């Protein structure tokens, strides 16, 4: 089974709030000083899913694609160190400020250029913007079925059986191949790269494709960013007085009712 895994490099979600800054005029997040970007935490789970499927299938190739600046090479190398076979970086100044739809178009073009994919796996969302729409976008462009938020993926004859995570339980669906599946954190802990694999990954060449290589024009943003700002959260603390726990509870209930919260 030939599998393509899309991975993304993002600002470290563990960045302390004090170091997270936004340039409201430029509508951009200012990279935190001294905090290196990381692989989107959902993406190693997509890679893990690909590795398990490949192992179970007994063959095939896993290609990792990332769209981003040159540093995104590290996200690809991480997947290669986990055991993926090849890496492609889509990097072009034209992609610097593209929206989800343009991202989906670029990824779809790259997936077609890699060719012969039975399955495309992605993390359920990128933990920076947390929108989770790119899998659907790529599916729309390529005309492939899309199954989102998977906690389990199994090869089932010529297709897949996928267990999805819902708000109130799980759902099992079947999908034909080729298909796009986004993988959730419920899939389980991804394997950690062994040192030997890290060394082998370091020696592997990552192909770099530009917009011209993909034959695409990013065009105008479908969903232009209007404003980017950090909301100001104000909170007040009020200690509810009372001589007994019952009285304190009564006073609290009255306060909540007066505030129309209950």
């Amino acid at each position, binding site marked *: 089974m030939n599998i393509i895994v899309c991975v993304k490099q993002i600002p470290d979600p563990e960045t302390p709030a004090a170091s997270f800054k936004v340039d409201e005029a430029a509508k951009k997040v200012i990279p935190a000083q001294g905090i290196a970007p990381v692989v989107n935490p959902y993406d190693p789970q997509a890679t893990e899913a690909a590795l398990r499927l490949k192992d179970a299938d007994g063959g095939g190739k896993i290609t990792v694609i990332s769209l981003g600046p040159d540093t995104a090479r590290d996200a690809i190398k991480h997947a290669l*160190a986990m055991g993926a076979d090849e890496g492609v970086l889509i990097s072009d100044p034209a992609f610097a400020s593209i929206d989800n739809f343009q991202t989906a178009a670029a990824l779809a073009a790259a997936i077609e250029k890699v060719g012969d994919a039975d399955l495309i796996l992605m993390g359920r969302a990128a933990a920076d913007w947390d929108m989770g729409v790119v899998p659907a976008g790529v599916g729309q462009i390529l005309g492939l079925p899309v199954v989102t938020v998977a906690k389990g993926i199994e090869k089932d004859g010529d297709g897949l059986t996928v267990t999805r995570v819902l708000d109130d339980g799980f759902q099992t669906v079947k999908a034909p191949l080729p298909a796009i599946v986004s993988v959730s954190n419920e899939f389980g802990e991804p394997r*950690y*790269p*062994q*040192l*030997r694999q*890290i*060394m082998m990954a370091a020696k592997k060449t990552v192909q770099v494709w530009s917009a011209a290589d993909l034959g695409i024009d990013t065009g105008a943003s479908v969903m232009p960013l209007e404003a980017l700002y950090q909301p100001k959260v104000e909170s007040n603390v009020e200690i509810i007085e009372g001589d007994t726990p019952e009285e304190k509870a009564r006073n609290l209930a009255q306060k909540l009712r007066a505030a129309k919260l209950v």
Partner: protein
Amino acid sequence: MDFALTPIQEEIRAGVSQIMRGFPDSYWLEHDESGEFPVEFTTAMAEGGWLGIAMPEQYGGSGLGVADAAILMHTVAKSGGAMSAASAIHINIFGPNPIVVFGNEEQRQRWLPPLIRGETRTCFGVTEPTAGLDTSSIQTRAVRDGDQYIVNGQKIWTSTAQEADKILLLARTTPREQCERPFDGISLFFTNLDREFVQIREIQKMGRHAVDSNEVFFDNMPVPVEDRIGEEGKGFQYLLHGLNPERVLVASEAIGIGEEALSRAASYARDRVVFGRPIGQNQGIQHPLAESWAELQAAWLMTMRAAWLYDQDLPCGPEANGAKYLAAEAGKRACERAMITHGGLGYAKELHIERLYREVLINWIAPVSPHLILSNIAEKALGLPKSY
């Protein structure tokens, strides 16, 4: 000048951090209390190929340098495992260096792959009750008898001897008085720690309970000649070769422990409210912690510089010693400050600060005391008369 980690170093840090997340504080506290060797941890590190990080690739290692190994050990120590984690694998990382550099091909083939795979556990028999830092005074004798040596004597502070099946053993093959120089006549062996001829007695100690420290008594232990590394009588020179990397690794471990203690102290100081405000808003709390941050950062830069020098095949004695000195002092002070920041809770086992403090003291005392480091730096870096 590039201070950034290489992509491989980033992966080392991420990969080892991921392993260490499987061994939380509770694991290390349980092992601290039971004194059991952290077998699950060493197995995970061996399976990940981490034990061979600095060993040559043709024997199953990864051929990386001491800077990379220092990042590995820093990550291990910083996890909360402190020296109970670091010491459990420390010997595998650079201990076999004399075999790599001075052993013959047959020995390298015979010894290195099982060490890298974690199948062979070794210990390091150098220090003796009457010869600590003054290594030329060792009394353990290896007397040639045909195609073997017969070893008699005693070692002390031999870490992991309870678990080890091999020992890297320093023994005198020619009496000191018959040698031209005090460090001549000492040979280095890598051989079976044969319980039939060896008695191992564990030393009860302040910290690092999960990794045993021992007295080892040799009673007519036979050692085949083919287990001698390099030439007879040159063992001390062979040993010296590995001392600077060891200083660098011990420094990186001390910094890891100090950073972990500091991080816990800062977190506590942010959250703990006394007199209506977080204690971390008080400069009396802030300044010592900030000072520790600066000390640990400086020690790390010194450690990386010493590692870089070693990896470039440049002399690095004063730098490696200086790194170990600064790192141990900074690590110890950070743990002390973490404890006073936590107040009484710092003394309680459940917050792990007291454990980090007990463990970082090893890096302060061993493998060389701060006093002798300063004497060495005074001599080697400042050209002052030798004082020891």
